[in-house]
Each structure stands twice: as C-alpha cells, then as structure tokens.
C-alpha cells in the first residue's frame, strides 16, 4: 500500500513546493479539526500545506520579521488537519534562524525522527551546511544523513560528465562530521523541467540515473524510519 505523506513548506518568503507539485491556486478550507491541507493526488496520498496557498496574489511578498513567521509556523503545525500520515516532511528555507527554531520547537513534542541535510558539492555550500549540522546537534535533532545535490552533469548530447559545482564535497562533509552520506543526485534538465511543470519526474523517467539516485536515498530513509 502507498504511504501517506504530508509536506509542510515553511519557506514563507519563497514557497516553491505548490508549483513543483502543480497545486498553485487552490483555496485552503477549514474543517472542524482545523485547516484542510491540499491534496496533490486523487488518492489523497500526498498532502501539502504552504503559505503559497494563503496569498491572494501569487507575486505578493511576505515581508515578515521573525516573530510573525514563528507564529504562522506554529499554526501550521498545530492547526492543519493532516489526518493519519505515515510521514510528514518539512521543507525549510536556508539558514539557522526563526523558521528552523519554530519547526523544531513546535514539532519536538510530536517526536522528530531527524533531519536530512542537502548540500551542493562545492566548499562554499558545505561551509554553510557544517553550521547547519551544528544547529541540529545543538537543538537535539538527529541527523539522518547528507545528500549531495547538483552532483555532476552528464551532457545529453555526448555523455561527457562536467562537475559544474565541483564534486564530492557532500560525501567529504559527511565523513568529516560523522554523518551518514545518503547519496548524490546529479544535475538533470529533465528533473528541473518536471519541477517547472509540476509533473511527476519519477513516474515519467523511471529508467534515469536521477531516478535511481533519488530512489536509493528514499529507500535508505525509509529504513531509518523503520529502525528508528
């Protein structure tokens, strides 16, 4: 049976997930139990809540200081009627600030399995993710592992591999900090195109190297959650 998954998008200034899942302009309804999340599929296996749904005008800027962001994230955690979920994924903006603290503080009582950290291969990126690792350690969030994204590009014309954003930095960082390295995901125009259109890349390109990479990571995480 398919797992039932919820995504909570707490990137309040730049909420991208609605577009990526092709659910841009629905309305958020209230029920007795709270806000009803938006379902991205007929079977209601994938639910999403994002500030993107609460804006009248999609180009409207959310120019909020920390306390207001903290308050909304608290509401998202408390007042969304997720129903029975196997997994709740929380997507955060970059940083170690209000949003991240709000998520940890509000979810702590519901038990956080852990955090997945995403980096690109170069040192400039891993340099910031080191600090993110410290954030997790300081806030008591277990690190499920690191992912190296945008890891190499295979030219669709001649198959030459170019390491546009360098390579290997994510794996090195995992070693350096004693975290598990979950895997690398390559740069793939087919993936970015799918995200633009909100189409399901995994369904459309199951033979691709990118699919394998993402699937392997997902399987590792599912194992963690079974053991955890």
């Amino acid at each position, binding site marked *: 049976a398919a797992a039932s998954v919820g995504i909570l998008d707490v990137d309040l*200034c*730049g909420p*991208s997930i609605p*577009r*990526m899942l092709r659910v841009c302009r629905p309305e958020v309804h209230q029920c007795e139990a709270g806000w009803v999340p938006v379902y991205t599929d007929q079977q209601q296996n994938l639910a999403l809540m994002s500030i993107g749904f609460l804006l009248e005008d*999609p*180009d*409207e*800027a*959310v*120019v*909020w*200081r*920390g*306390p*207001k*962001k*903290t*308050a909304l994230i608290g509401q998202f955690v408390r007042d969304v009627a997720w129903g029975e979920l196997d997994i709740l994924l929380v997507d955060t*903006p*970059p*940083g*170690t*600030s*209000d949003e*991240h*603290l709000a998520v940890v503080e509000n979810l702590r009582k519901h038990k956080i399995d852990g955090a997945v950290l995403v980096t*690109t291969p*170069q*040192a*400039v990126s891993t*340099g*910031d993710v*080191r*600090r*993110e*690792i*410290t*954030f997790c350690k*300081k*806030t008591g969030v277990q690190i499920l592992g690191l992912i190296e994204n945008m890891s190499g*590009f295979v*030219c*669709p*014309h*001649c198959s*030459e591999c*170019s*390491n*546009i*954003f*360098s390579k290997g930095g994510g794996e090195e960082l995992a070693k350096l900090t004693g975290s598990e390295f979950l895997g690398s995901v390559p*740069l*793939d*125009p087919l993936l*970015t*195109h799918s*995200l*633009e*259109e909100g189409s399901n890349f995994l369904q459309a390109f199951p033979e691709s190297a990118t699919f394998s990479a993402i699937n392997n990571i997902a399987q590792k995480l599912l194992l963690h959650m079974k053991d955890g």
Partner: protein
Amino acid sequence: MADVPSDAPQHCPGTSSEQAGKTSACQGCPNQSLCASGAAKAPDPAIEEIKVKLATVKHKIVVLSGKGGVGKSTFSANLAHALASDASTEVALLDVDICGPSVPKIMGVEGEQVHQSGSGWSPVYVEDNLAVMSIGFLLGSPDDAVIWRGPKKNGMIKQFLRDVDWGELDYLIVDTPPGTSDEHLSVVQYLSAARIDGAVIITTPQEVSLQDVRKEIRFCQKVNLPVIGVVENMSGFECPKCKNTSQIFPPTTGGAERMCEELGLPLLGKVPLDPRIGKNCDEGKSFLSEVPDSAAALAYQGIVKSNYSFSHSSSQCSV
C-alpha cells in the same frame, strides 16, 4: 541589542517591530504597555548615526534574490573585484547573511580576524582598495552556527553599518541572504537616511526562481528601493566537449528576459554556468582575473558596466 531589552520575554518581537506590545509573547512583559503605545517605536537613533558614518560612502548597492543558491554571493564578490580592478576605486563588500556567511571564503580571507580601534571595527582587506566585513570573521570555528532569531540578527546588521570603520568608499556592496525578512528590512531601515543607490536582483532562468524574484521586486517597491536591474545566472551550460548548450535550469516561462520586459525592468545580463566560477569561489580567487576571456567573465563585465552607469546617472539626481 537595543531592539530586544534584557528583561524581554522569549519570542519578543523587538521594540521597534510593528508587533511590539501586541503579540502573545508580550503578555506579562514589563514593557508591554510602553511598546503597545508606540512610544518605543521612535526612530532608531542609529539611523542618523549610520547616515553620518556612511557620508564618506558614495554608492551603496544591495544584492538580493528571492531564492537561495542562485549565485548572489558569487555575483557580489565578482562585482566587488570588478569595481576594485581600478586601483583608484575604493570598494567594500558587507556580508549580512548572518546564518550562512560565505563571503570570507569566496574572497579568500576565511579565518582572518577583525580588529577594534577607537574609530570602530576595521574590516578585512583583500586588496588595498577592497575591504570585506562578515560575521564569518567573528566566528571561532567553521562549525559554529549562528542560531539567532530576527532581533539579534538586526542588532548585528546595525553594528556592521554603524560601527565598522569603512573610511572613504566609492562603493559599498551589501550581500544578503535569500528572502524578504529581517535582514532585508533592517538593511533598508538602517540605510534609510544614508540612501541606497538601488538593488540588483539575482535569479536563475526557471519559473520556480522567477516566482520568488517577483516577490523580491514587490518588496523593493514596498520599501521604495530602486531596482537597478536583474541578473540571470546559470543561464545555460556549454558542454566543453561537444559545445552543445543545455538549459539545465530551463527558462520555461521566458526566463528573466520576459519577466523584465513584463515588469519594465532592465535585464543587466545573463551569466552562463561555468565550473570555473564555483572552483574559483571555493579557492577564494577572483574568477574575473583567473578566466577573463570566458563567456561568463564577459557577461559579468557587461553587468558591472550597467551597474556603474546606473550609479553614476542616479548620483547626478541625488539630493
């Protein structure tokens, strides 16, 4: 920090916030009625102090993006290097990304220390005419995390603008984290008397990025910050072997070009993906000096010229 008093409760919104005295966190705080009455919202004296301090800074440019990872800091660093390539131009780069301060590494001055003197904090000099300030210099270890809420970040930004001894500058470039939040509001607020020339907004070609750029542009309109223009980064990749170009981040809705046409904003330029850009950033070298004949370097140079024109035409209109 003056914004969050020492007797403030947890989650204090800050005395100069719109929410001062009004949030649930304010219940029971000894300052609640003072804040709610608006008395604490008198203009921050630091705004005038910063105006005086930055009177010796001719041009101030803020680099913004809606999304993370689009190349803001890379652009800010390259802009700083390009402007400073003329030895008679004094340039400084201020990094207000408090949680993810990349600028020291990109500028090749990671691990340097900041010193205090009678005239304030001295920035770190990359060249005689190119200075950098970042919270990165104040952190003891590359693992140190700055786990600060908004008010504390705002206080740091105020200090950077008021207490750094920048000296005489032709250009102060302010590199920001992605978004439209505390850091951005604080930069605009604290520089409100000192006058910012304008903002350069960085994007990648896809709609997922552009949809956040439109919000960033709205932010600029809201706070009366002129937009110098938009830079489209990661604009195509030419395979070094077969020379075919791939749109790794596809401009499915026309890219920055169409968005700029629709909004009546200048497209300052399009910078292609080039592995040497990231490599030089990692090594703390100037991409423009190392690979000056590359398509990306030529694109950057064109963008820098547009910035220069904007700053010099707007200065003719300055009060």
